[in-house]
């Protein structure tokens, strides 16, 4: 009997350490999440250069901000600022996003009815143009301003032209040689394009963008993981989740609903694992180092989009409650890890630290972007608001 008790004690202790270490979800109350989101917006707004670009990387140990840059992430940060403008009635965010948009417009190549973001003048990656289009769609939702409608159509035409017959996409186009890249593929560009096309359909119904979006979703849900050799499918792709959240009202197939459920489970597993890293020293040892905010934030974004889908389609109703639980958890983790205004005073340049998330002494602008978007839409799930779009008829308001 003693041996049996000892055996079970050792076994359960072993499981506790290796399989189910304690999970910690930080300060996951609504107020903390909202405060963290607002502070992230402040970082994006204040760490912008006069030409519209943002601080891409910052290393506080050497107090350096390298000159590296990435146009896809630039478009992503711009998109997040437009989300802040629309949903938080933040006039400062709108101004910063418009300045960032000007940089993108200056780096846009036009050919025929196409428009594509190509900072070097000839090489246009699909992801940059897709996120630029998402940003413009967010701006349109926030301001009802149609001034960029032609540009949106140009970008959408470019994305549609890059789409293959199987619904997947060519990942870039070289305007010098007038050839798309027919060799390489991308894990995330299809999801970004899917969401851009879905938003295009929402903005301009009746123009047929839904056909492209549906083809893209079919590719993502049936072929993408295989094409990209994803070891543990489905790929944790928040862009696909955004697309599903947008398209769920159009009607999804059972297979696509099943994919959405699997995707939510993948994000949920990642969140639980991250919470285990937070929960105890042995959990931290067993699960390895913390993920960076640009990763954790995408799980947040993906889960929030799928929560929205669960509100619109009864076939996903069963994931609603656990999804909110995970969203609260991952948002609490992010809120805890963010550098507060007080903590930032210990940094060489407090303005580059306040509101940022660091890992290995580094923050990158998309850490703030993804974390912010995830926190913003988590608040919707907590409050039970299934509408992602801003409901602000009087916007834009005076600048802050």
């Amino acid at each position: 009997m003693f041996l049996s008790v000892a055996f079970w004690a050792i076994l359960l202790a072993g499981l506790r350490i290796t399989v189910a270490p304690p999970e910690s979800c930080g300060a996951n109350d609504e107020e903390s999440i909202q405060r963290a989101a607002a502070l992230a917006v402040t970082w994006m707004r204040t760490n912008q250069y006069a030409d519209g670009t943002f601080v891409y990387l910052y290393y506080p140990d050497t107090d350096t901000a390298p000159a590296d840059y990435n146009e896809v992430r630039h478009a992503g940060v711009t998109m997040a600022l437009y989300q802040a403008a629309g949903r938080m009635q933040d006039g400062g965010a709108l101004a910063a996003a418009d300045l960032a948009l000007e940089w993108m417009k200056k780096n846009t190549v036009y050919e025929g009815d196409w428009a594509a973001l190509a900072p070097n003048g000839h090489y246009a990656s699909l992801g940059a143009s897709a996120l630029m289009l998402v940003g413009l769609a967010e701006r349109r939702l926030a301001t009802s301003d149609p001034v960029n409608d032609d540009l949106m159509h140009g970008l959408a035409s470019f994305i549609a032209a890059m789409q293959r017959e199987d619904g997947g996409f060519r990942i870039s186009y070289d305007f010098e040689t007038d050839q798309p890249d027919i060799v390489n593929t991308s894990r995330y560009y299809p999801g970004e394009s899917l969401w851009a096309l879905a938003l295009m359909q929402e903005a301009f119904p009746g123009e047929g963008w839904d056909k492209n979006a549906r083809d893209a979703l079919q590719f993502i849900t049936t072929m993408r993981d295989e094409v990209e050799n994803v070891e543990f499918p489905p790929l944790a792709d928040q862009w696909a989740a955004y697309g599903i959240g947008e398209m769920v009202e159009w009607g999804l197939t059972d297979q696509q609903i099943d994919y959405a459920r699997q995707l939510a489970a993948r994000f949920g597993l990642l969140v639980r694992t991250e919470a285990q890293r937070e929960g105890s020293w042995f959990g931290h040892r067993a699960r390895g180092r913390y993920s960076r905010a640009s990763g954790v934030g995408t799980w947040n974004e993906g889960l929030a989009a799928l929560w929205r889908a669960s509100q619109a389609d009864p076939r996903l109703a069963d994931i609603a409650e656990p999804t909110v639980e995970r969203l609260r958890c991952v948002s609490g983790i992010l809120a805890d890890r963010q550098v507060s205004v007080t903590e930032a005073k210990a940094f060489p340049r407090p303005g580059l630290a306040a509101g940022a998330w660091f890992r290995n002494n580094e923050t990158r602008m998309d850490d703030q972007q993804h974390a912010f978007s995830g926190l913003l839409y988590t608040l919707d799930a907590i409050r039970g608001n299934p509408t992602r779009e801003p409901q602000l008829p009087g916007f834009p308001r005076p600048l802050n």
Partner: protein
Amino acid sequence: MFASIAPFGALAAVLMHRAQEEALDVDARDIVLACVVGLACLTVVTLLADTILDAIDVSGPSFQFAAGAALTPLAMRLIFAGDSTYLPERMPKLAWLVPLGVPLIAGPVAIIAAISYAARFGEGDTIGASAIAVSFTGALLLAAPLLQRFPLIYATTVARLSGALILVLAVELAYDGVRSV
């Protein structure tokens, strides 16, 4: 719940105990009381499942994954030994409490499964399933004097098969834990 209580493993354990020369018979009253104790234990942990998970800071799916792993030793014991637990030759005075109520009926695996299923399917379904499984186990154990007339290998063979079933359930439980939000 049926698999985690392993009625045929419990039957084999009781039959093996009864086959021992110095064994004192376990009477019907002990069996009934053991079932009451076992069911009470499982009901309590089911009702306290959320509290327990909160107390140990583990989410339902993570616990479920661990529960799958915890089922494995029971499955191995059933497969290789043909019973679910060892019953001593000399039963203690309160045999209906230990070892019959706990761990024969409500063993660690059944308790872990009850917590896991309560989080997954709800308390009512779990208590209902526990009641059915415990009643069936009790009926089998009450019939032990009759079943003792048959060769022990019949009971141990069924127990070994149920061990294989538990192994499958363990994998399913762990897999579902990973595939849950």
